[in-house]
């Protein structure tokens, strides 16, 4: 039965994580924005926590329910994760991305690694390197190569814009084992830091999320053990394998959408604080044309944030319920990435001089949130995915 009232458990998660964000991330937010690339040592306490792990195998019927409160409804793990990420990003998005052992690479490993690989790499911090200078949105066109030589893969190529490039322990690198096979030839490989031929070439200076180390890897005849390939080495005729990898994004897009939710809410909360301090009472009742434009703008932003959140929660909830969510995940990211950007800009506008000054965080949130409309598929790419789904068009028909 439809019910969009948050459960007690969801509220507990939200409040708990907000406490963490408030006490651990907000106080250091400005510092690590000013000191680009400095390692946020305060986050080391998270290393021992299992933020990302394989979901435990479902117990048999009846054993499931949590023991503490009879009748309490626990949200699924994906929904819980979206709530967690929103709260943490309300604290600081760059720092959330810098949480040890919780990289995008970790998500990929958890999704497809064998038990042996889990044993070996499960506790490592993994970055994910797909993008190349010549291959961004078109990730199927990457040119980094992997060639089998005896018991080793030999990797060559350049990867750019890798999140946590410096801080991570290992990198999941996308490379092609057979260029002529197109997307079917693309595989992912685990490369440990310190392997000869694997170099961190440089770190980028960015608009926002400056606390995070975005970097370039160069692979120059880098040799890794044969076992370091994720998934099957076989090149199938179909692109099923590539599609499988792309499916990871159905899981992570709701999380990126949640990042936007968190930053956007931070900006709105601060704006609301200032509005109320000035003596205006938001009453949620009057004809929205009979209030000041400031109030109406605020209401519209709040409504949009609500829309972003519901689209995002739906896509995560579907995952928890084993439903295919490719369309809904892209809807959530398309809406949240774009709208979050607009709202954070607008908040600065409404805040006036407070929105420009680095004495406050609003200007930073405006810079930070923008990335959510870019990485893991730009807003345009999300619209493409949604449109192809809705119109039932192939990627050849709708380019």
């Amino acid at each position, binding site marked *: 039965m*439809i019910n969009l*009232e948050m459960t007690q458990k969801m509220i507990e998660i939200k409040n708990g994580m907000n406490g963490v964000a408030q006490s651990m991330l907000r106080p250091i937010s400005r510092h690590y924005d000013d000191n680009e690339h400095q390692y946020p040592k305060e986050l080391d306490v998270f290393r021992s926590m299992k933020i990302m792990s394989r979901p435990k195998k479902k117990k048999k019927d009846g054993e499931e329910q949590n023991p503490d409160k009879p009748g309490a*409804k626990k949200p699924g793990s994906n929904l819980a994760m979206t709530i967690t990420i929103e709260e943490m990003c309300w604290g600081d998005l760059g720092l959330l991305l810098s949480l040890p052992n919780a990289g995008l690479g970790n998500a990929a490993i958890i999704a497809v690694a064998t038990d042996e690989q889990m044993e070996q790499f499960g506790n490592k911090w993994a970055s994910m390197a797909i993008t190349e200078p010549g291959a961004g949105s078109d990730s199927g066109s990457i040119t980094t190569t992997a060639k089998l030589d005896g018991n080793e893969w030999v990797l060559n190529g350049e990867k750019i814009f890798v999140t946590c490039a410096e801080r991570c322990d290992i990198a999941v690198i996308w490379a092609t084992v057979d260029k002529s096979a197109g997307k079917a030839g693309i595989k992912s490989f685990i490369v440990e830091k310190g392997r000869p031929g694997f170099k961190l070439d440089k770190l980028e200076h960015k608009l926002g999320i400056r606390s995070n180390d975005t970097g370039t890897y160069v692979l120059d005849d880098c040799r890794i053990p044969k076992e370091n390939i994720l998934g099957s080495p076989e090149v199938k005729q179909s692109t099923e394998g590539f599609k499988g990898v792309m499916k990871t994004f159905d899981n992570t897009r709701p999380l990126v959408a949640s990042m936007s939710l968190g930053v956007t809410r931070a900006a709105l909360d601060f704006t609301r604080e200032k509005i109320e301090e000035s003596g205006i009472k938001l009453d949620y*009742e009057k004809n929205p044309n009979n209030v000041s434009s400031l109030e109406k703008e605020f209401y519209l932003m709040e409504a949009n944030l609500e829309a*972003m959140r519901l689209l995002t929660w739906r896509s995560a909830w579907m995952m928890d319920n084993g439903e295919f969510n490719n369309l809904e995940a892209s809807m959530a990211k398309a809406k949240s990435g774009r709208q979050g950007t607009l709202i954070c800009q607008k908040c600065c506008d409404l805040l006036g001089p407070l929105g420009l000054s680095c004495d406050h965080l609003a200007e930073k949130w405006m810079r930070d949130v923008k990335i959510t409309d870019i990485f893991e598929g730009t807003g*345009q790419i999300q619209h493409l995915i949604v449109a192809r789904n809705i*119109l039932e068009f192939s990627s050849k028909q709708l380019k």
Partner: protein
Amino acid sequence: MEEKEFSFRMSEEQRTMKETVARLVKDVVAENAHDMDEKKAIPPAFIQKVWELGATVSVVPEEYGGYGMEHSPIMNTIILEELAYGDMALAIAATLPSLFMYPILDGGTDDQKKKYLPPYCGASYKPCTVAINEPRFKFDPVSMETKAEKRGGTYVLNGKKCFVPMAKDSAHLLIAAATGGTNDLFIIAKENPGLKIGDREKNLGAYALDTYPVILENCEVPAGDRLGGDQGCNYGTFLQKTRVALSAIGTGVSRASFEYARDYARERVQFGEPIAFRQSIAFMIAEMAYEVDAMRLMTWKAASALEAGRDAKREAYLAKLYAGEMTMKITDYGVQILGGHGYIRDHPVERYYRNGRGIAILEGMTIV
């Protein structure tokens, strides 16, 4: 009480109702909505068909002539979206008795329930209506110019109302007025000499729905007909329920425009290929798709709060604000995707565009 699970999934009952209404809409209005609009009338048989679903009467307790089933705002949003997907005028007309009866159910005195509910619980649809909107610049349902003044055992009402659906054929009206500090609803019989119903209005949208101005001139209403008696009613909750309902209607109208434009864009060929092969069209369609969903989810969210018996002021306000803005955007896209053809009344996107304008402006036209 056991906590409800957080869920986006319809129950069996909700899905069955949705499908039933969808089928009815398809059989009854799909082919006729255009004619209804052109002829500016809804055939009474269509309204009767919706009435026979029993949604309104089902929640009235047996002692007042209903079936005593649970009142579910969420279920009502599902019904309204489907009806409005078929035709907005029909959605408002067919659910009009709810708009009159639910506030009495929620906040009426025993006497009011006994007197005013049973006559409207029959097998045949009988219109009864509600008057909220006022014909003036800066109208606001929380600061009305229609005033009620207490004089002894009666209230004297003065003011002008507009967009009162089916007022001419309604035996009773529920009329909103400000009573020195509070907002109230008054039950008024049509024969009341202080009440005058003007000529049928001509409006931008919902041509098929007949609406009227209502003029109150020293209209005397017995104190016993003030909704809730001495206590008055919870006008805020009433407003919330009507705002959620208008959001559901906006969702239905928008979805109709979205689906029509989507199908058209797949078929229409220009420059040698379907126009939807071009991103500027395809991306509009993508946006329409997720905004329709967002509107519906916000409607459900507010309805969930109402269903839990919680104050839904904020949720209902934001849902209506969002639905108002988005319905305009989506129905505009609908016309734009059809180009010049979208401007011609042969295609329904023209009607959706006119109807959609009402969501933001109107108040109190329908209820969950």
